């Protein structure tokens, strides 16, 4: 699936329209670590604060640490995502921080 990318200084924006689903946008600044991340879009998450907690939890982490943290948090909170999947978020992170 094609992911659109827009660059602005250190911050880059990735937009993915999930087939049959919703729009997922990730604004990110990462080099060896994730300095900044903002996840947005017209999807649904239950509970909603899973997304906020995820952002907080991976800020300052390396990409490999971030992915581990996400799967731990996902298992712990057991959120239900509608219109996007947790893999859509991880795919973009991998691409952004490659």
């Amino acid at each position: 699936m094609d992911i659109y990318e827009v660059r602005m200084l250190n911050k880059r924006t990735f937009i993915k329209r999930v087939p049959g689903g919703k729009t997922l946008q990730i604004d990110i600044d990462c080099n060896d670590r994730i300095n900044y991340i903002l996840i947005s879009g017209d999807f649904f998450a239950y509970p909603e604060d899973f997304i906020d907690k995820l952002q907080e939890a991976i800020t300052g982490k390396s990409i490999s640490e971030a992915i581990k943290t996400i799967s731990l948090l996902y298992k712990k909170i057991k959120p239900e995502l509608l219109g996007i999947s947790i893999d859509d978020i991880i795919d973009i992170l991998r691409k952004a921080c490659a």
Partner: protein
Amino acid sequence: MSWRLIIDKGNTYWNMAVDEAILIHREKNLVPNTLRIYVFEPSGVTIGYFQKVREVLNLDYLLENKIDFTRRITGGGAVYHDSEGEITYAVIADIEDIGRDIMESYRIICKGIIYALRKLGLKAVYKPVNDILVNNKKISGSAQTRKKKSLLQHGTLMYNTNLDMLEKTLRPPRIKLEDHGVVRVSDRVTTIYRELGREISIDDIINALIQGFKKAFGIDELLPGNLTVSERKLAEKLYGKYESKVWIFMR
């Protein structure tokens, strides 16, 4: 099962504050399941909890024309609530009374709108997660949030929405439009009047919604009521959140 029916109107901040206040009261079992049918007066705009304001709204136009806008506590997309063309509904209920499964609960609640449209002479189709289409164009959109025991789902029913205004206030991402295979917002959105080819009264639409939801939820008794004093007080407090820049520009 007895439900409460509230029919009212308010500005953008008040309407969102009332929905949240009812949800919080329902969660504490202080009020019954509630069907609220309301209008935005004046017209306003709401965006989904996860949306970036600048990404989805035409802020210059909104500020220039003094159109209120806020962020909802529910996910989903941006909505233009036309005071003379759109009716909003909110279902606040115990999760067990609608359905524990989230997708299933969307389907059940949206069924109420499909019944309402059928009553008005239109054949509507549910498009998961949250859209209802007539002739392949969106006529209604919904968004749900949940607490531990209760849910709030609110959504739109467009009967005569000014599609030109809708297009001016919202900024759909190009990528989304491409996926839908058309370019203009107004090409993929429709209204009851447009589909019927004539105007009908607001009362008829409200009545159809009431009958539709009664059927969809198997409600025996829907008693007209008002907000409790406590709900009103909480809504007044939440009003401040919904008009605050911190909340609106959170993303």
